[in-house]
């Protein structure tokens, strides 16, 4: 064993035995520092013969590299050990709750309105709106509901107070979204395809009625739009809305002053086990009223009934929401019970789309 080997063994021993970074630094200085043992030996090279210098120089360089590597390895080991020791002391109870964050919800009425809008938008229907306090002309007369006709009485209308000095008939809280038909025709003319979702009001309150509820009106006017088109549109809507591959609709003759012919529309369903299934079974569920627009209504909207024809329909948004999502009581929609809002509400970013599906 030559002197360099002894030197090497000595330093490697000391490095291995170093207990902390400080003693490691001491060793580094003793070996490789400016006045360290190896550095001093390097300096002696200058006094050697060229041959000696070559062999000793190479050996010294190798020694220096080895010591340096050993020092670095030891240093890393010490750091790891120190980190391990620290991590062992850093324990937190991961079962404790995260910092609280409120979760908001979207009301089923809003969600279903968005669903309905998404479907009809895809079929080319725009969204029209109108005032909720309406003149009796828009709410009734323009829709072919004459003042004394029993149909007008059946609407259970809320009337606004009227100053006795004002000769006009009292305004009403719109009893249906149908007046928006008239306003949309007046504003947009024909051809036209719109839906009009919104609040409507009837003087009725019991298990299944609330004095305020929501409807969506639909209207399409063109040169040759027929009741068969209406049926197709409603079939497509029901398939998309109830998210079933097939639906069967039944049109039943009925009467609405603003459509002619008029039809109540039933959908085939099953109530087996108390659960509603659309598109199968042997029951029929009435879901909406519809028909071909009465020529007088077209005329009231400023559209020439000899040139244009179209259909209209109206259905209850709250009602289809109840059917689709199994919500039992209409009045609870407007109670704002937190438990109800959280249970039946929808996630804020759960925006219904045709491409992503309506319900998650």
């Amino acid at each position: 064993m030559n002197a360099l080997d002894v030197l090497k063994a000595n330093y490697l021993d000391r490095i291995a035995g170093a207990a902390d970074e400080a003693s490691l630094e001491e060793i580094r200085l003793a070996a490789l520092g400016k006045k360290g043992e190896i550095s001093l030996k390097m300096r002696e090279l200058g006094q050697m013969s060229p041959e000696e210098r070559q062999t000793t120089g190479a050996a010294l360089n190798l020694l220096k590299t080895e010591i340096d590597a050993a020092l670095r390895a030891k240093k890393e080991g010490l750091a790891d050990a120190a980190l391990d020791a620290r991590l062992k002391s850093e324990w937190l109870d991961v079962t404790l709750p995260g910092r609280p964050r409120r979760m908001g919800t979207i009301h089923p009425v809003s969600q279903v309105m968005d669903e309905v809008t998404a479907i009809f938008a895809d079929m080319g229907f725009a969204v029209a709106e109108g005032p909720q306090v309406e003149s009796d002309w828009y709410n009734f007369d323009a829709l072919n509901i004459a003042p004394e006709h029993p149909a007008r009485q059946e609407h259970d209308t809320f009337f606004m107070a009227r100053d006795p000095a004002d000769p006009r008939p009292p305004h009403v809280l719109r009893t249906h979204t149908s007046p928006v038909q008239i306003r949309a025709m007046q504003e947009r003319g024909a051809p036209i395809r719109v839906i009009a979702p919104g609040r409507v009001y009837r003087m009725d309150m019991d298990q299944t009625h609330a004095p305020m509820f929501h409807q969506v009106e639909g209207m399409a006017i063109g040169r040759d739009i027929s009741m068969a088109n209406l049926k197709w549109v409603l079939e497509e809507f029901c398939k998309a809305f109830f998210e079933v591959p097939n639906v069967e609709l039944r049109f039943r003759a009925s009467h609405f002053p603003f459509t002619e012919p008029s039809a109540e529309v039933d959908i085939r369903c099953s109530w087996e086990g108390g659960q509603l299934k659309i598109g199968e079974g042997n029951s029929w569920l009435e879901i909406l009223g519809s028909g071909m627009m009465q020529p007088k209504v077209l005329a009231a909207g400023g559209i020439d009934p000899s040139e244009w024809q179209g259909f209209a329909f109206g259905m209850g948004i709250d009602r289809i929401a109840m059917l689709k999502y199994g919500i039992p009581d209409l009045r609870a929609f407007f109670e704002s019970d937190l438990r109800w809002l959280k249970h039946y509400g929808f996630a804020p970013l759960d925006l219904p789309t045709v491409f992503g599906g309506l319900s998650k």
Partner: protein
Amino acid sequence: MKFTLSWLKDHLDTDASVDEIADALTDLGLEVEDIVNPAAKLAPFTLAKVLHAEKHPDADKLRVCNVLTDEGEKTIVCGAPNAREGITVVLCKPGDYVPGIDTTLGVGKIRGVESHGMMASERELELSDEHNGIIELPSGEVGQKFIDWLAENRPEAVDPMIHIKITPNRPDALGVRGVARDLAARGLGVLKPLEVEPVPGGFDCPIGVQIDAGLKEKGCPLFAGRLIRGVTNGPSPAWLQARLMAIGLRPISALVDITNFFTYDLNRPLHVFDAAKVKGDLRIVPAKGDEELLALDGKTYALRAGQMVIVDDQGPESLAGIMGGEHSGCTEETVDVFLESAYWDPITIAATGRALKINSDARYRFERGVDPEFTLPGLELATQMVLDLCGGEASNVVMDGAVPDTTRAYTLDPARVISLVGMDIPEATQRATLAALGFVLNGNQVTPPSWRPDVLGEADLVEEVARIASLTKLVGRPMARETSGVPGPVLTAMQVRERMARRTAASLGYNECVTYSFIDAQSAALFGGGSEATRIENPISSEMTHMRPDLLPGLLQAAARNQARGFADMALFEVGPAFHGGEPGDQHLQLAGLLVGASAPRDPWGSRRPVDLYDAKADAEAVLAAIGAPAKTQINRKLAGWWHPGRAGVMALGPKALCAFGEVHPKVLREMGVKGPAVAYTIWLENVPFPKTKTPTRPALAISDLHAVERDFAFVVDAGTEALVAVNAAMGADKALIEAVTVFDQFTGPKAEEQMGAGKKSLALAVRLQPSGKSLTDAEIEAVSAKIVEKVTKATGGSLRS
């Protein structure tokens, strides 16, 4: 509208089953609500014969009978006094459900004797109230089904009752004949002819009739009647009573039952006066306004001036076309009867009926429109029936007025029918349908029958053809979009904004509510509403009398309800209209948010603290940002009365308020029953300006490679100084260089005043300088810092904190 199958068959020759008829009715627009088939509950029972009957060994009143049934001889213990050898009885076997006693039979042991069933009384089978003994049938074979026996011998007992819903346009279907006509047009049978034989009068009617000249034109175009003297007004015959009972009417006397029968059979309401109680002629006049009339429903009605009444020399005798008077009503003692058949104007009847709040079968029909041309034929038919059932002698007919002319014609355009309905209905079928419904066709001109006042245009012809053809057969036909290719967006900018606002609020943790648009007067007044213009004339409850002026009262009421259920903390919001007036369009779109209680549940991190104005402000700003409101708005304190005067503000752009936010006034909270703290905001969604031009292109991103420099400043200012004043002043020091100024601390309260003097506070601002082109030198930073200090101290009257 109710009728029975056999009643229908009086008018319709048909072999169709009840189910076929019901399906057709619903499809035709006469929706079946209910079918009551008495045969259903009687189906299990069979006929049996008592072979032998003897006293029960252990009971005086019971008999042990040996009964021959379709299953052989059985022993039955019976308590009926008429249970005896040789009678044919109705047998209920063990396992059968007996409707009248609501029991399913078993094999019983009565005082030691086993009994295998029972022999039923009429009451036990709900056939009548008869319960003096068991049914004894005069005919029938052992084993025969009881319902078959009934169908043969007592058909009314197994006559199915059909209840249909009549839409307001179909007065003709308020008579059984009208229903039959629809079914015949559909092909479910043949409408039987209705023969009207005039009954010749034997004498002149002693009671004259006159219609007030002013009413002839409108209220009562035609009034007719005649006296029938010498009648016997006893109970009506069993078949008539059975029919009336089947549809839920109580038989009263032959004369009254006849009028009810005509009401339902032919939609021809009639009235019968006891002629002995009528003094002088019957006159149809407008009421003066001081009369009263005790009507047949036992109520006294005060008449308003102008309401149409029938009077005699003593005063009002009948509410014309609505309800007769008690005084001249027919009784069992009536001998001479005046039979009235009139045509009343629907609008006049509707108005009077509504004003007096009387619902009667007559009003219901007249206001929808009965057949004016059937007024006199109806009188003739009814006269004959009175003579048939009550005897007597009829006078000549007296009448005033005339049948109003309702003749009108519309063009049938068969191609248009096909185009509108979307069904290929051949022209011949269209014409045949209309003819079957009583329309008269003359080329393409179609005259509706007098019983169809609802048919008022070509569209009505289309409807008749379509409903008879059956809309059930309609096959959907695709309707292409008006434009091909990718559909464009359909929502307006405002509709998009509303949705964005809603989902942003929900994503901030608020639960969306939908509250009523009307609230109580007191709450409305608290929020600047409650005006007469926004009052509802006929509210459904005192809680819903006024249109809401703001969304907050509804949310506060919701909060109070939830607190009452034990939920103290909540975040609620609503998007919807608020009403600032009573005219159409006096509504505006709001989003209101409400935070009540604590910011968070109790947790180990101390997250829970009372909600405060800055929570509300942050959320309001987040919603505003989402809908594209400018980041910088003015903040003023032009506050409505329901806000805390010192802890609320209004974000505005010039005169336009975008949002009010802050603490709700404690007095308002108290009045609305909400336990605070409660902070809220109202955003007027329509007040936020839309960008002038809409382009998806963003402005170029300007980023400097040079480091920004941040400098902090602390100022001592008056405690009432608003931070925004200092921030804006600092921003103004060098608009090019200063990128942002933020308040990062404030020091207020007694400790602050101890250090800085009474009425003072400290505000700490961080100013971020963003150089462009070249780095800032220390001298430049010093210069801008000095400028900031100068601007802020000048604007606030404060000083740099040393």
